[in-house]
């Protein structure tokens, strides 16, 4: 009965998407060099698949492994260390379980909704159940579909790792109080209804893809946005949804009155370091090749993380008298979030600048802003990913340069070199915020009505580890 209600919602959603597509989408989504991600359909149908570039494939497989490592153990440790001892396993379980759950969804219908066909609004059934992605027996020989220079399987895997970490990031907002079962249902729907469409819009020639026909078809997208590795798709979407979660679930018991210090700062540091390392796969891997762009994105990522760590810790040093390890770690993550959309489009000094900006702005978001409005974003998923992602998307419009990638027919791209990308970036940010807020709000309301979002007071006091999973983190007797 509860499921029926949800089912209805889902259908409604796709109906909407479908319509919009048939109504205005006919001319949309031809692949462009700016949206090379739109290539699969074509290359998959090609008679003679191009040979695999072993170097590119080696790097992309490595990157896929690195991005999985970001969620487990990376994020699991980063978040797990920040909660109280009685909830450490619940956070780790959310991350680990999502590694399984989102992967299965991705294999069944996620990848095709995100990258199938060439619609402007949502993918079609082209790759349903991995058909057309996995190896096939074609006229007497095995064939492995290609995605430009790498097997499409590699592309599917790499993108699938993003599909894992994005929802996992949201967990930071409702940590220490959400029912596990409700989280599972929420994530299935969120991944399907928020992530997949958004991913398609930005990375598969959809309405937000820079200079795609689809974007051209909707003037208000201002020609679409550039998002190299997921500033909008991953960070804004998760960060903003996180804020909605924090607001709808309400504060943790005792929030504001009793202290809730991180129970194991060393875990948080290990997690932050692993995130930094894994992010190289996340950003440099988004070049989908082991080329110069990958190297450039790698450098931008490294520089921004470094600058972010210094600027956040610096803010504390100046305003609080002491630089903290948590500050340095948070700053590095903020820098990484901020550079994500820009990593493949900017040079060194702008990367450092973006890192510094991220450290300062996110520091203020997690202290002043959160204090000002008093919402309980337990682990600052919004303060870091929502705010940092938005900042990064906008700064991409400022610093993106043709010197790294000539995506605008030789014309300038970013504001700094006289280009007009910023408009599209703003459009992208606004659209993403709206999508994330609206859908997340509806989902949570529905789920709350159907099965409730929060654990009981008794359970929250005893801790989620025991009450949700019947386990304890540490038994040192």
């Amino acid at each position, binding site marked *: 009965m509860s499921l029926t209600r949800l089912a209805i919602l889902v259908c409604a959603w796709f109906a909407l998407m479908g319509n919009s597509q048939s109504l205005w989408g006919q001319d949309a989504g031809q692949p462009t060099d700016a949206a090379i991600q739109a290539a699969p359909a074509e290359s998959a149908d090609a008679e003679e698949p191009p040979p695999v570039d072993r170097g590119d494939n080696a790097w992309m497989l490595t990157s896929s492994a690195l991005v999985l490592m970001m969620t487990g153990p990376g994020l699991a440790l980063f978040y797990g260390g920040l909660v109280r001892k009685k909830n450490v396993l619940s956070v780790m379980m959310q991350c680990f379980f999502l590694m399984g759950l989102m992967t299965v969804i991705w294999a069944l219908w996620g990848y095709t909704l995100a990258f199938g066909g060439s619609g402007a609004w949502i993918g079609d059934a082209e790759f349903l159940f991995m058909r057309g992605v996995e190896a096939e027996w074609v006229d007497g020989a095995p064939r492995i579909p290609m995605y430009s220079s790498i097997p499409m399987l590699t592309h599917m895997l790499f993108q699938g790792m993003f599909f894992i970490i994005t929802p996992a990031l949201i967990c930071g907002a409702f940590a220490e109080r959400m029912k596990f079962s409700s989280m599972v249902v929420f994530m299935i729907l969120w991944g399907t209804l928020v992530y997949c469409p958004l991913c398609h819009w930005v990375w598969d020639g959809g309405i937000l893809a820079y200079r795609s026909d689809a974007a051209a078809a909707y003037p208000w997208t201002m020609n679409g946005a550039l998002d190299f590795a997921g500033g909008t798709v991953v960070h804004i979407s998760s960060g903003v949804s996180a804020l909605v979660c924090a607001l709808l679930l309400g504060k943790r018991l*005792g929030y504001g*009155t009793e202290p809730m210090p991180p129970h194991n700062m060393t875990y948080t540091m290990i997690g932050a370091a692993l995130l930094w390392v894994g992010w190289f796969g996340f950003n440099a891997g988004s070049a989908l090749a082991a080329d110069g762009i990958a190297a450039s994105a790698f450098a931008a990522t490294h520089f921004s993380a470094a600058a972010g760590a210094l600027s956040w810790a610096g803010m504390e040093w100046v305003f609080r008298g002491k630089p903290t390890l948590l500050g340095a770690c948070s700053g590095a993550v903020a820098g990484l979030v901020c550079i994500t959309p820009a990593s493949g489009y900017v040079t060194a000094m702008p990367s450092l600048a973006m890192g510094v900006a991220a450290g300062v702005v996110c520091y203020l978001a997690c202290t002043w802003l959160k204090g000002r409005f008093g919402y309980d974003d337990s682990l600052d998923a919004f303060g870091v990913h929502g705010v940092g992602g938005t900042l990064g998307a906008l700064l991409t419009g400022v610093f993106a340069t043709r010197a790294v990638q000539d995506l605008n027919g030789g014309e300038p791209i970013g504001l700094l070199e006289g280009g007009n990308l910023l408009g599209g970036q703003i459009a992208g940010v606004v659209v993403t915020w709206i999508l994330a807020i609206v859908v997340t709000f509806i989902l949570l309301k529905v789920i709350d009505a159907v099965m409730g979002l929060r654990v009981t007071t008794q359970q929250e006091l005893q801790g989620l580890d*025991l009450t949700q999973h019947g*386990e*304890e983190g540490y038994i040192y007797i």
Partner: protein
Amino acid sequence: MKKVEAIIRIFKLEDVKNALSAQGVHGMTITDVRGFGRQKGHTEMYRGTEYKVEFVPKIKVEVAVPEAQLQAVLDTIMRTAQTGQTGDGKIFVSDLVDTIRIRTGETGEQAI
């Protein structure tokens, strides 16, 4: 002087401490303990094999108090540590022969 030892629920510590210092208790010592009693523990599960944890994490609060303050202290703890559920804990009162403040060497009630 008396020594008051109260075994209370972990999440009640904050309240008890505040209430006590509010009424002029200037010091106390707390210890992490595990308790066994009417409040049954919980079962945990590892690879399907369940096992009962009969000891429940509690906090022991120790306060040395002058006779005069004793009743007040007991009442305060009673009031603030109570939830009405099994497992609220116990208070044990015993005699103190003497108390010494290491820093100054003061003894007796003024050492508290």
